[in-house]
């Protein structure tokens, strides 16, 4: 590659010397392609990445720090008891098909999402809602059955997108919302194109005319496309081993951020041997996070000792709760009658999982446990591991915000974990309005799951982004699944 880069740099120099207007068309690489384009009916993260807060908008949004900001609701008031929310909506907003936005669209969207038999992916958002009504054409009143500290944050998510009754049925292939970009075309297996929506209230501030998402699942192909400058940006670049190379190349900016994704060695708490606390603790002693992060992520990840992102306000460092100690783990496994036992590790097809798996296999072998690895397809994983709880161990990243809630999802959730004490704690966290008190409770929750060694906690999934030099506006970190593009531009 080295002999090639000289003429390339020369070319770049020549082209920047010419007076060119700022580029307004951007090609963004994405690893995953969704099967439908409606975030209110499908949980695939790629839908949110492309469309939430770009094509679709919600009542609220969040900024890069995760703080709630107004969106289609320009302001709101909350009653003393924390049960009634009154939103006043922005006036003069139109959907991309030209129809006007008003309170009836909100009532329609929310009633549809929380209806009996709704396919909305996050029922937790809707569970606390008792009623949604429109006292005026631009006023919405929502009554909750119990206070919900995450309510405004939840309303910013793609699951709570505002859709129009006229176009709701065609949103899966032809999404229509009120956002700054409108859907242009989707070539399956190749690309999805958005164009700027002139009718948007902040259209003047949008830096891009046209956005093209290209679906490239193979990291090697993505690298080739970036090096050939067929892509302008790749947020969430999947291959940490290639970052060094891009960092050394002046054509690119490499951004290392964090995500909400806790990567865990999930243990099936509902069946032997992981129904025993001592065995789970032995696993935590057997694994060496430092080696996993070095080996699987090339050192580009932060270790976690519990199930909460290190950049969050309530984070408490529990990484030293179970120091790496092979001798101790061996003894603990032996005491539980597990010496020379064979345990299956089913791995979903993600590099962070398959790579960590091989290292964990070696570390467990040192502690006398035979781990059989099964690399499985994503569909098989969803069905067998996630739905049927048919596994001993697996490795998976949990990318949703506030997902300490997972431990209160009862024995049917694939963790197979249930604790009345934790359920009560989570109920308290969910209904606590004071952020200070809530953060203290969240720390208790982190300590609780670590104390019970529910899983092996590995590292926080990093967000590695590669952008062409001179692009501004991309978020470094992702507190949510979406990435607003209205502020992204070429300098």
């Amino acid at each position, binding site marked *: 590659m080295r002999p090639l880069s000289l003429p390339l740099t020369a070319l770049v120099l020549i082209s920047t010397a010419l007076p060119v207007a700022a580029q307004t068309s951007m090609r963004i690489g994405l690893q995953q392609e969704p099967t439908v384009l409606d975030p209110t009916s499908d949980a695939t993260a790629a839908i949110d990445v492309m469309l939430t807060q770009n094509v679709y908008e919600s009542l609220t949004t969040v900024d890069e720090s995760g703080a709630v900001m107004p969106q289609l609701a320009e302001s709101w008031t909350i009653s003393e008891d924390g049960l009634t929310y009154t939103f006043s909506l922005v006036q003069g907003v139109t959907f991309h098909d030209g129809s006007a936005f008003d309170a009836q669209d909100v009532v329609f969207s929310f009633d549809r999402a929380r209806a009996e038999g709704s396919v909305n992916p996050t029922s937790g958002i809707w569970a606390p809602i008792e009623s949604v009504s429109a006292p005026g054409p631009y006023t919405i009143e929502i009554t909750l059955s119990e206070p919900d500290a995450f309510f405004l944050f939840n309303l910013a998510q793609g699951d709570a997108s505002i859709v129009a009754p006229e176009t709701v049925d065609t949103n899966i292939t032809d999404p229509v919302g009120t956002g700054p970009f409108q859907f242009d075309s989707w070539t399956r297996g190749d690309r999805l194109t958005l164009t700027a929506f002139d009718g948007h209230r902040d259209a003047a501030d949008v830096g891009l005319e046209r956005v093209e998402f290209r679906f490239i699942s193979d990291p090697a192909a993505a690298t080739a496309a970036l090096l050939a400058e067929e892509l302008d940006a790749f947020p969430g670049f999947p291959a940490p081993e*290639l970052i060094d*190379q891009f960092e050394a190349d002046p054509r690119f900016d490499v951004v290392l951020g964090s995500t909400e994704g806790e990567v865990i060695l999930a243990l099936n708490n509902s069946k032997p041997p992981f129904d025993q606390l001592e065995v789970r603790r032995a696993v935590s002693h057997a694994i060496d996070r430092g080696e996993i992060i070095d*080996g699987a992520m090339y050192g580009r990840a932060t270790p976690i000792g519990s199930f909460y992102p290190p950049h969050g306000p309530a984070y408490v460092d529990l990484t030293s709760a179970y120091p790496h100690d092979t001798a101790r783990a061996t003894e603990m496994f032996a005491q539980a009658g597990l010496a020379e036992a064979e345990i299956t590790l089913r791995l979903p097809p993600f590099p962070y999982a398959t790579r960590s798996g*091989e*290292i964990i*296999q070696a570390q467990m*072998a040192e502690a006398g446990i035979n781990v059989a690895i*099964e690399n499985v*397809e994503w569909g*098989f994983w969803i069905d067998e591991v996630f739905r049927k709880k048919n596994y001993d161990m697996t490795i998976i990243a949990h990318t949703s915000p506030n997902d300490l809630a997972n431990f209160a999802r009862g024995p049917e959730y694939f963790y197979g974990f249930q604790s009345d004490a934790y359920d009560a704690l989570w109920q308290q966290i969910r209904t606590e309005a004071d952020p200070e008190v809530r953060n203290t409770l969240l720390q208790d929750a982190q300590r609780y799951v670590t104390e019970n060694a529910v899983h092996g906690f590995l590292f926080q999934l990093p967000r590695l982004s590669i952008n062409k030099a001179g692009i501004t506006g991309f978020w470094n970190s992702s507190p949510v699944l979406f990435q607003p593009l209205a502020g992204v531009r070429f300098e």
Partner: protein
Amino acid sequence: MRRAAVNLWIGATLVGLLTIIALLSLVWTPHDHTLLSISNRFQDPSVTHPLGTDQLGRDVVSLLMTASINSLTVAFAAVGIGGLIGTGMGLVASARGGWTEAALMRICDLGFAFPAILFAIMLAAAFGPSLGNAILAIAFINIPIFARVTRGAANQIWAREFVMAARATGRSGWGITWQHILPNIAPILIVQATIEFAVAILAEAALSYLGLGAQPPMPSWGRMLSEAQTLMYIAPELAIYPGLCIVLAVLGFGLLGDGLRDLTDPRLVRSRK
């Protein structure tokens, strides 16, 4: 030297080397191939690591050696199983003739229509991916191949005068098959098996490239290749080594099969005289 002999010798040398390396790996490799050492990753070739180390700091020579026994086992088991069943079917079809022959050959046509990779994915979806399932899938594609070759060759022998003589003396169909047919088609079967070995090694590499073959920590050339794919820009040699192993193994068995065929083919023998 004649072309046939050259093929034979190159093929035999490559196959012989591969077999020796594979057998050696059972008792000795330079390092333990499961030994990870992250701090020693991507090392250049040295005296301790003749081909360097991979992305997890494992010794590449040890990995390649251990993977060769994996490849050979799969090829041997798959061709063995497929060959036995296929040859059996072919002999039965040829000995019985009539509707038995027609039915068996139509079953083979069905087998031909079914791609091995698809069959392996189906097995993996139903029973989870494993070495056993990879062997089954590759054995499955070998059945119709051997059945057809056996039937064709056996039918020719059945038409020869000495077989007719044997039949005239009242020998049973099975007796003739065992005493006259099988020995006479054995060279053809051996040649076919050698060539199918090459195909099986390639198929095993393809399956393990897709994660459907040997599971870690058992190394396989195909999986080494797929793991090296994203590392192409920083350590291209990690893809070249297993790739080269696959090429040489396939080439070796292919040339050996070719050479053996030239040696045993009666038409070629006659033309030489």
